[in-house]
């Protein structure tokens, strides 16, 4: 019981402290620290680099989560079916999930290598500089995220699928409904809570993306893959600007809270409707 309270305090304190720091001009190397109120936030609103980082983060989150859902639903339907080799597929989808993100980023960086990477080889000797070209790099990062987390989404969807009573399908077959019709009228509606939950978890996770992008591109080329976490990290640890860095971190936090609030409200409405 006291441990629960300790947890709440220990976890809440750093966030409050970050908010407090964000109200300061605080450069670590100069030892300079003074209270400046909302000055950092005023600067944030006019900071074009913040705008582009926010845009990149939103784009990354939206596209990655959408693709993951599109892949995870068929995968979950497949895993829910009985066929020889299902155990193998089940075990192997967990492999990307278990690999550290940093390692998977390195692994993909090698496959994206412009000279001898697997992807250009498969494209018949193309010479696309995946991680070095502005339009490509962010999509490459999305692919890495999709590879790693689709299994997790599929597992959530699978848990939802297993909660659907078999009788419904039997009744539908008796009524002569086609498989596609069954999927549209039974599976999808009953799966909605599980899907929303998956969207909730994944989008909160994708919004704070750091590891994969840091290792793949460090935010380059020309900041086209710089997300909020990367910008905040660079400001904190490379520039040693703890005041503005904390402001960026708090902004990331607020983004996550906002996303969570929207999804939870939606999820609550779905549950109330049942």
């Amino acid at each position, binding site marked *: *019981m006291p441990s629960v309270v300790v947890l709440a305090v220990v976890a809440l304190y750093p966030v409050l402290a970050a908010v407090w720091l964000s109200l300061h001009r605080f450069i670590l190397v100069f030892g300079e620290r003074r209270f400046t109120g909302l000055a950092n936030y005023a600067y944030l609103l006019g900071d074009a680099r913040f705008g582009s980082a926010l845009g990149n983060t939103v784009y990354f989150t939206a596209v990655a989560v959408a693709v993951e859902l599109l892949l995870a639903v068929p*995968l979950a339907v497949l895993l829910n079916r009985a*066929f020889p080799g299902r155990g193998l597929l089940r075990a192997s989808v967990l492999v990307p999930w278990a690999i550290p993100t940093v*390692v998977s980023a390195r692994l993909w960086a090698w496959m994206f290598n412009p000279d001898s990477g697997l992807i250009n080889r498969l494209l018949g000797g193309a010479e696309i500089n995946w991680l070095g070209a502005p339009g490509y790099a962010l999509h490459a990062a999305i692919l890495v995220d999709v590879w790693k987390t689709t299994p997790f989404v599929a597992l*959530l969807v699978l848990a939802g699928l297993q909660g659907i009573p078999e009788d419904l399908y039997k009744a539908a077959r008796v009524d002569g409904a086609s498989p596609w019709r069954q999927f549209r009228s039974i599976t999808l509606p009953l799966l909605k809570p599980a899907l929303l939950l998956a969207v909730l978890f994944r989008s909160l996770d994708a919004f704070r993306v*750091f*590891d994969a992008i840091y290792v793949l591109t460090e935010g380059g080329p020309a900041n086209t893959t710089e997300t909020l976490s990367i910008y905040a990290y660079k400001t904190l640890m490379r520039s040693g600007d703890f005041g503005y860095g904390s402001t960026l971190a708090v902004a990331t*936090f607020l983004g996550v809270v906002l996303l969570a609030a929207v999804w939870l409200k939606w999820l609550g409405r779905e549950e109330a409707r049942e």
Partner: protein
Amino acid sequence: MKRPGLGTALAVVAFLTFFLGPFLWQVLTSLWPDGELTRPWPSHLTGANYQSVLFGRPFLWAVLNSLVVATLTTVFCLTVGASAAFALAKLEFRGRGLLLSAALGVSMFPPIATVSPLYLILSAVGLRDSLVGLALPYTTFALPLTLWVLTSFFRQLPDELYRAARVDGCTPVGAFRRVLLPLAAPGLATTAILVFIFAWNEFLYALTFLSTPEKRTVPVAISLFASEYKEPWGEIAAASVVATLPLVVLTVLFQRRIVSGLTAGAVKE
């Protein structure tokens, strides 16, 4: 079992290739002789990359550091988490649901939001750049997961067991220790695996709080792997295989547990 149709078979092959292909390519790369990487296919396979990674670089230290941090985190989480989860699952008190939601909320914090204060705190108490100092924030981050998984495991144990133990004269703590804890062993094992994997994989805190190269954990070491002129892809691949093979084996062996733990943590009944 029905014979699978062609569509099913194709889908299975496609998914298997997508999920396993990159990893297998990494394994092949790690055995590829250096200097031949631009060729379409290796002329022979070699263990040279492994040799230089394991003995020519301080990579083994990183593995050891990661083992220490991940073990510490797991022990911390289970010690604190087991009793808290027991209280959440079996004892009636106000604000139970609120606490569980709060725990879930905490796990949603972006780690970057807590980096600057944690950096200052750890510096102030002299725990920055230490493995114990790294395990502490890991514990607070992994505790919510621990609580969720363990609480759902404790809930599955029948209430009668706890009441019977109380009637037989056990204190709540005694009943927890002697009766419920042993029965929750599978739940504890599942949690331990999940927390261990989390701590083994964490990158941002490790990158930020550790400054001595000898203290680097595996993800940091792999991210900073560089030689002066070109990326040593073969060695990186070898290091990656060393760092992930234990996890892959662990995952495949405990597949069922991990799946049940992940979904218990995420989907509450």
